[in-house]
């Protein structure tokens, strides 16, 4: 593998990516880069290609033209086993959690360790316990996904995404469908987990609160292109009308970043 040399660059890099799905042009020359260890938020109207972008990163979709590089490798060009080894470095948090509904939380979180890494049970258990502890679900380990709230399901899914200690974490609308307090606690939890793991993050969201809490940089997609990009601070004070529309900017937004550290415990209970 030539990963050693190419790994030094960005974790994720899109180079003029084009993609057509069902006769509709979704991505039109999309280019952006996510440096290692940073969090990149993707915003924009529905149908602008945000989720499709995530699918390109995990290799579910391959570009029609242009290149997608993840840790220097092109997911769409890899063999089955190479793709598996690349995916083992990536964790994906689905919009509704996508927990396996007939397994309890503990077994769900253990899935990547048992099925992919094939670790012995004595190594699986402490790591699952640690991941559940990180998302404050240690005492719900035996519960089934149908027995818990939406916020808890998201946190359990986050535990499953981080249990294999991925270097890149992808989030598809992490606070969608949650009340503002629960959504806020999820966002702060994501920010803390990102920092603790030192992982790179790509977050697709419609929520200003999520973008400003979690993102180091924010990109606004429009019609399959990057319409505007900048640091969270730049975007929060931007005069660009497109940015202001999607961020719904007003003065209080930036305060969410300042209290983002260590505040999960206070509001964590609302997610249950």
């Amino acid at each position, binding site marked *: 593998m030539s990963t050693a040399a190419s790994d030094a660059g960005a974790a994720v890099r899109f180079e003029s990516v084009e993609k057509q799905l069902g006769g509709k042009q979704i991505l039109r020359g999309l280019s952006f880069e996510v440096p290692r260890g940073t969090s990149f938020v993707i915003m924009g109207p529905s149908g602008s290609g945000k989720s499709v972008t995530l699918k390109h990163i*995990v290799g*579910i979709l391959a570009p029609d033209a242009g290149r997608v590089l993840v840790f220097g490798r092109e997911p769409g060009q890899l063999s089955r086993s190479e793709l*598996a080894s690349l995916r083992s470095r990536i964790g*994906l948090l689905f919009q509704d959690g*996508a927990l396996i*509904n007939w397994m309890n939380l503990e077994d769900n979180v253990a*899935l*990547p360790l048992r*099925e992919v890494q094939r670790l012995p049970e004595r190594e699986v258990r402490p790591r699952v316990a640690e991941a559940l502890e990180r998302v404050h679900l240690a005492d719900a380990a035996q519960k089934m996904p149908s027995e818990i709230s939406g916020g808890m399901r998201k946190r359990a899914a986050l535990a499953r995404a981080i249990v294999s200690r991925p270097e890149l974490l992808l989030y598809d609308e992490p606070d969608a469908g949650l009340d503002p307090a629960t959504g806020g606690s999820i966002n702060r939890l994501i920010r803390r987990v990102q920092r603790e793991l030192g992982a790179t993050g790509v977050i697709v969201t419609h929520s200003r609160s999520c973008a400003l809490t979690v993102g180091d940089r924010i990109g606004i997609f429009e019609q399959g292109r990057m319409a505007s990009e900048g640091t969270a601070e730049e975007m929060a004070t931007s005069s660009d009308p497109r940015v202001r529309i999607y961020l719904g900017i007003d003065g209080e937004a930036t305060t969410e970043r300042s209290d983002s550290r260590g505040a999960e415990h206070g509001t964590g209970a609302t997610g249950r």
Partner: protein
Amino acid sequence: MNLLRTAREMLEGTSYTLGIAGRTALALPQLWRRRRETTEQCYAASVKLIHVIVLVGAFAGMILSLQTGLALADFGQEGSIGSIVAAAMVREMGPFITAVILAAAVGSALAAELGTMKVSDEITALEVMSIDPVPFLVLPRVVALTIACPLLAIVANVVGIYGGSIVAESLLRVDPLAYRETVYDVLARPAELFPFPKDIYAGLFKATVYGFLIAVIGCSHGLRASNGALGVGEAARTAVRNSIILVLVMNFILTRVMYT
């Protein structure tokens, strides 16, 4: 144009289902890792359905006995009811009614279960984690049903023949001992190849094939589900329809191969 599209969709569906069947066969070495799930699925498909099989099997035998008995009585041949009921149950009715019940009760549930997983992104989540859904989800279900179907067919055969004997004795005044003897006569007939009663193993072989078909079709329709709750309903409906059709077609082919 519509016909062409339907034909293309059927072809795509068939090749997908064949692919699932092939990949399941290739995943067989992983069965030991999936033993817990396989046992659970086997339990769900057999023990939980046994009362239905007993009820339907008994009535199938009773109807067979009554219909053939009334016809045979016209010729004073009601003494051979046992042989007809036994042959019909073991060769055809037992495996077939078991397959129909399994298609309706388990095949539909498999399609709905995997379909729900598909539309709620659980299958995609497995793929992103590099967990192949075929050994993980399909293999245990297919193996479980392939085992459960012949086991349930045995139950259907036994209660069917017994149900037939009750009707023969109570309504047609056939001596139960004579009924039992004619049953043994038919069933003890050995095959050319094995020193084993042909009707029994041929029927159970059919049931094994039916179980495999129903599970593979149920799983493949579930995995191809799309379009939310509507798609899950559609997957369950087409899975049941297609598996019953295919069981009938396969029944004819297997009968032709094994009995002529």
